[in-house]
């Protein structure tokens, strides 16, 4: 298909903006909606970086697809954000905490929307603790075997989590450099603020942003995409059974 030069340039402009901030709004979206060629170009562009576009009202989001891709955010970059001594296990631990956080808002088969207005730090900590315990219930041999055969590193992550000093959780100020689970969660929060996943709506009360809700409800809950996501998860199960 032939495109006008003008459209290609404009589409690229919009794409750079999307890539830089994750969304475009207002007149950019209007332009996008009015020019079909720009739309199709943009869709191709994002397709090549393993992402999709989600149009929600006056905002157009760039959503990286679930899965692994060289175009997605890199561990190295995230490690730098967590702290000087962070290793990959920290990154995965953080990602896990984020999933637990979001899952707590979408925990029902009956309703589509969010089921709670906000989550507090302590509750979140409890939830992560419970999940980590479940993980710990797999026999060490089983975990270790998985670790060797499929390069899982859950034992490492579990060890890391357990090593974080849980005893000082009652201390008044945890935001500093105290090595504890809460202070780790605070780091995760900082990351989530930066990625615009949560907002603080009160002291210690954290809610999902409009962006996050849109992504869950428009991407995770879309029939085709959902199938793709589940497929992505199944593949590991299959590999394990082989």
């Amino acid at each position, binding site marked *: 298909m032939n495109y006008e030069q003008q459209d290609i340039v404009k589409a690229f402009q919009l794409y750079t903006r999307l890539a830089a901030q994750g969304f475009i709004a207002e007149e950019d979206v209007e332009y996008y909606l009015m020019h079909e060629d720009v739309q199709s170009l943009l869709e191709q562009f994002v397709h090549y970086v393993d992402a999709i576009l989600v149009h929600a009202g006056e905002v157009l989001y760039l959503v990286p697809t*679930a899965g692994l891709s060289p175009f997605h955010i890199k561990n190295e970059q995230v490690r730098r954000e967590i702290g000087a001594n962070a290793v990959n296990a920290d990154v995965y631990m953080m990602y896990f905490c984020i999933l637990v956080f979001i899952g707590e808002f979408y925990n029902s088969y009956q309703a589509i929307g969010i089921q709670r207005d906000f989550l507090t730090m302590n509750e979140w900590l409890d939830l992560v603790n419970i999940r980590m315990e479940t993980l710990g219930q797999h026999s060490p041999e089983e975990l270790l075997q998985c670790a060797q055969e499929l390069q899982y590193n859950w034992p490492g992550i579990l060890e890391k989590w357990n090593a974080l000093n849980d005893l000082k959780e009652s201390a008044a100020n945890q935001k500093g450099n105290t090595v504890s689970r809460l202070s780790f969660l605070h780091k995760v929060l900082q990351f989530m603020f930066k990625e615009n996943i949560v907002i603080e709506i009160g002291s210690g009360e954290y809610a999902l942003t409009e962006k996050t809700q849109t992504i869950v409800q428009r991407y995770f809950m879309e029939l085709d995409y959902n199938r793709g996501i589940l497929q992505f998860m199944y593949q590991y199960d299959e590999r394990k059974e082989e």
Partner: protein
Amino acid sequence: MEEYLKDTTKGFGERFRRLAVFTPLFSLKGKRKSAALPFDIDWFSLGLLTLLFFFESKLHRQGKKGRQELADYLYEATQAQIGAQRSHYDLITETIMDTFRDPMGKRHNEAFFNWETGVQEVVQFSLLKTDTFDQENNRQYFTLDEAGLELIFATKEYFSEFRISIAQLLIRKQLEKGEFSSALHEIHEMRIAVQALRDHIQRLGLEVTRNIISDDTYGKYAKTIENVYERLTREDEEFRELYSFVKETTAKIQFESQKQVDEEARLQIAQVSIELGEVHQLHHGLLYNVMQLKNRALEAARQALFSAGIQSFNFDQEIVSRIVSSPLPEEAVKGLVHPFTRLHQQTSWSLLALLFPQRLQRSDQEEETAAYPEIEEEEYRQHTLQQEENFCRIMEEVIKVMDGKYSMELKDMIAGLPGELLQHRSFYDFWLLLHQRSPVVKGVGEGKHVLDKALALLEDDILEVGEKPEFLQITEQYTLQNMCFTRRRKNG
């Protein structure tokens, strides 16, 4: 108290009474399973059903409704859910009836403190009353009493949709009667109603954009939008009429007040006119919002042609739980978080950056501080030592002036202090520091502080320094707020 808060307690007793009629109903919630009724019974909703039963009977002029009829009805309506026998329902009915209507014949009483009048009051009400008594068959029939009717009416949701229309009517009546201040209050309430409507529309808008909508839901939204739109147009018309009515009234008052000066009424009607205009404008903006919402819903419906939503998806169960129970590799965790993050951004550096214009630094100043840090530190230490000595001396003088007293104000001390002390900067630092750290006590073992030596002079007493309102012009150069210097025994 702020002026606008005066109205909070207005009609407190009346509001309390309205709430109090619900207490018997809510007390049903506390009922537990018993040996006689070993079922999970939602007593609260059965109680509400009972009231509705009597209400419908009254509505259709069906008299002669007693315990048996009620038990029959409840049996028919709820038996499938609860699974109890007809014989159990006699007991259920009895329990509910006894809660609503005391078997001893006492009325329901709720004591409360009326904050408006400032006295203890009691509200009395009854939900059910005896309709007739059939002596021959020993049957008693009941009907809803005043409070029971009120309760039923209060639960019906007809009001919110017409709240604005009703307010408009009310305002008109109040203006006709010349009650401008209550009309003003009504306008304020109407503003809240309009804002609530705006929030509702916004929430709908968010829902539409957040979800993939199916045909059904689109139909639902379209219908809601249609309703709201109709309602808004109707209300808008009414607003215009009301507005012109206010104009007329204003003109009338202007005319009348030429004869008899009624300044207050004129001001109030002017205020009514202004605020009504504001609310109208706010309301008018809603029309635009609804149009926007309509477009969004249409757009969402268009998108729904390309993608279908799934009926239910439990993120917690299907993603988080699966990760830990399977367990999936942490790589999968990463892949699942990616939708929420940015794309990778390559940072690159160009060789040409060497030729970019450079920011000029003010090198002279910065270099100096960087080159000789130890001297500055030495200076600082000297200064601290000096200050410590100074503070110690000042404290000595202060204790001397206080002459054994435990509390004294600064303004009373000044006369007794040596003049050169007042000329010195340290004297003022001393007070500032003390005020900042108050209450203070002699440091025990911790790090050093410039006040340590001075505080040691107070032995173990606790020292409090609090500010007083007036300012003291102590010398030409220095002004200090008056302070109160208090010594307290540690255990006293």
